[in-house]
């Protein structure tokens, strides 16, 4: 690790991609993440990489498809409406098993909505925005440092599983400045995906030709490909579940489940809940897909109430219910429209839910 620098989330996100070896970035401007593009417009040429602003997010998603299919580490960033436009491409990219990385700096929706922080793209990210049975690995940082670390890790995971990885942050993480330690490497990571020679289109010189495609007209072939994808997803579920636990030792009155910016607000709210004598713990999912189902299920045994706290009208709560399986009451507290609740509002919300349950 290098020395600490103070960086804006969006700029740190761009720098992290470069440190991870990525030399190809395609984008379309959209608030609140445009600074990633503006940063990389300067940085990519400095490191000999490719920066291109496409004509739309639809086009960008296929620029990723193309570059990813050519075995290059490729990255994009966008925000909610832009990710919706990439949904078609995501289905194709996941089917073609291309190791691309993207980040959704979420803003409030639906529709044009606004540009303030939100987490209402949880379903879109974890349940699949596009058509078909596919999964992106989905990771949710809650600080600028974690965004940097997870981006670097994402390129490795994408490469390891030949699977796209999507980070979900929110406008707050994109806009705020925090000190970060940028990772350093003894050997700079390659801009190419390891082992790409076996599948990528680089020109069939001295080898069998490679084909990147998603059409399976023969139903058996189609089924086989789906089974292959599901086998890979099972492996990811077995290996890559990540979360942070705070104060979950012993019996609890309430267990909070919250991610990203919302989890930080919860941490402050926990202090005031404890001051009022509430035994409160939190599980903060870092991987949203795969989701820490089993761990939440285990914790549900020793708490009176589980509450999913989100910047949405209630999305992750469905996965929390799936985890808890009716063993313990599950409540929900959330805000929408770009409103980030204060720690006090969260505290009051939790106390109300405790009274009701």
């Amino acid at each position, binding site marked *: 690790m290098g020395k600490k620098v103070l960086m804006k989330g969006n700029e740190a996100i761009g720098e992290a991609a470069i440190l991870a070896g990525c030399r190809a970035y395609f984008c379309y401007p959209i*608030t609140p993440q445009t600074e990633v593009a503006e940063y990389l417009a300067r940085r990519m040429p400095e490191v000999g990489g490719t920066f291109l602003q496409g004509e739309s997010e639809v086009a960008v998603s296929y620029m990723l498809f193309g570059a990813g299919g050519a075995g290059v580490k490729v990255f994009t960033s966008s925000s909610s409406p832009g990710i919706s436009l990439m949904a078609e491409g995501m289905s194709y990219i996941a089917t073609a098993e291309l190791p691309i990385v993207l980040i959704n700096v979420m803003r409030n929706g639906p529709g044009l909505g606004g540009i303030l922080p939100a987490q209402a793209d949880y379903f879109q990210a974890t349940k699949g925005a596009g058509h078909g049975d596919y999964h992106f690995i989905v990771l949710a940082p809650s600080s600028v440092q974690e965004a940097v670390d997870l981006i670097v890790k994402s390129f490795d995971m994408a490469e390891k599983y030949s699977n796209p990885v999507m980070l979900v942050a929110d406008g707050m993480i994109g806009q705020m400045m925090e000190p970060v330690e940028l990772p350093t490497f003894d050997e700079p990571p390659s801009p190419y995906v390891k082992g790409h020679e076996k599948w990528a289109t680089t020109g069939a010189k001295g080898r069998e030709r490679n084909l990147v495609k998603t059409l399976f007209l023969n139903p058996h072939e189609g089924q086989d490909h789906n089974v292959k994808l599901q086998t890979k997803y099972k492996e990811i579920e077995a290996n890559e579940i990540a979360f942070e636990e705070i104060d979950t030792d012993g019996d609890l009155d309430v267990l909070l489940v919250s991610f990203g910016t919302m989890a930080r607000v919860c941490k402050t709210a926990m202090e005031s809940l404890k001051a009022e004598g509430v035994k409160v713990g939190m599980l903060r999912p870092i991987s949203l897909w795969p989701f820490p189902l089993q761990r939440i299920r285990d914790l549900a045994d020793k708490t009176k109430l589980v509450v999913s706290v989100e910047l949405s009208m209630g999305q992750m709560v469905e996965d929390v219910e799936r985890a808890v399986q009716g063993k313990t009451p599950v409540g929900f507290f959330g805000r929408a429209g770009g409103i980030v609740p204060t720690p006090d509002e969260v505290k009051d919300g939790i106390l109300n839910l405790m009274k009701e349950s």
Partner: protein
Amino acid sequence: MATTVFKRPESMSTNITHYCPGCTHGIVHRLVGEVLDELGLRERAIGIAPVGCSVLCYNYFNIDFQESAHGRAPAMATGIKRTRPDTIVFTYQGDGDLASIGTNELIHAANRGERITTVFVNNAIYGMTGGQMAPTTMPGQVTTTCPMGRDVQTMGHPLRVSEMLATLKTPSYIARVAVHKPSYVIEAKRALKKAFQYQVEGRCYSLVEFLSTCPTNWAMTPSQSTKWLEDTMLPYYPLGEFKTPDEEE
């Protein structure tokens, strides 16, 4: 007895616009309002707002409006006009909205000859998102996503939308105008009135491109902007009518 020589068009509202000082979006709005009034179209008109600085343009008009997704206005206008043929439908779009993300919808609405009118505001930059490159950005022009200036070797030359659309056989009227000086404003209004008049007559697609200023993101004063538009944009984007109904077969 006093006579009224100047008043707010009926088609416009009393709200004060949110545009930056020296931005010409407001002048274009005013022309749209005057033309709708003069042609007696207020109660038939339906506007489509884009996504861009003018996303809130419906606040400044007193006519029906729909708000589009970024770039999709011509398709929405198509949906309205095809199902309500007696209405007068126009899209109001910036150059990022129309010439980048929405080129597809634009070209096909024009080529199908949709009986709609497009008010196209070309300010050579993305305004709302804070000054990124647009397809219409001038060679060498500095924006936040081309910090060294637009390099035509990697980004091509600015897109001349009006000339491109004029190659299509179907549209009835395509013109480019400017509004940075009063004499130009008079010409601009004449062109806009024709465009709407042709729609009233049931003719095919019409579009008027307005060369416009964005002092904020050009990082200029309003008067510097006017000069830059005149010196840099005008020579590349010539004014005039590129297609008129007379050429229609």
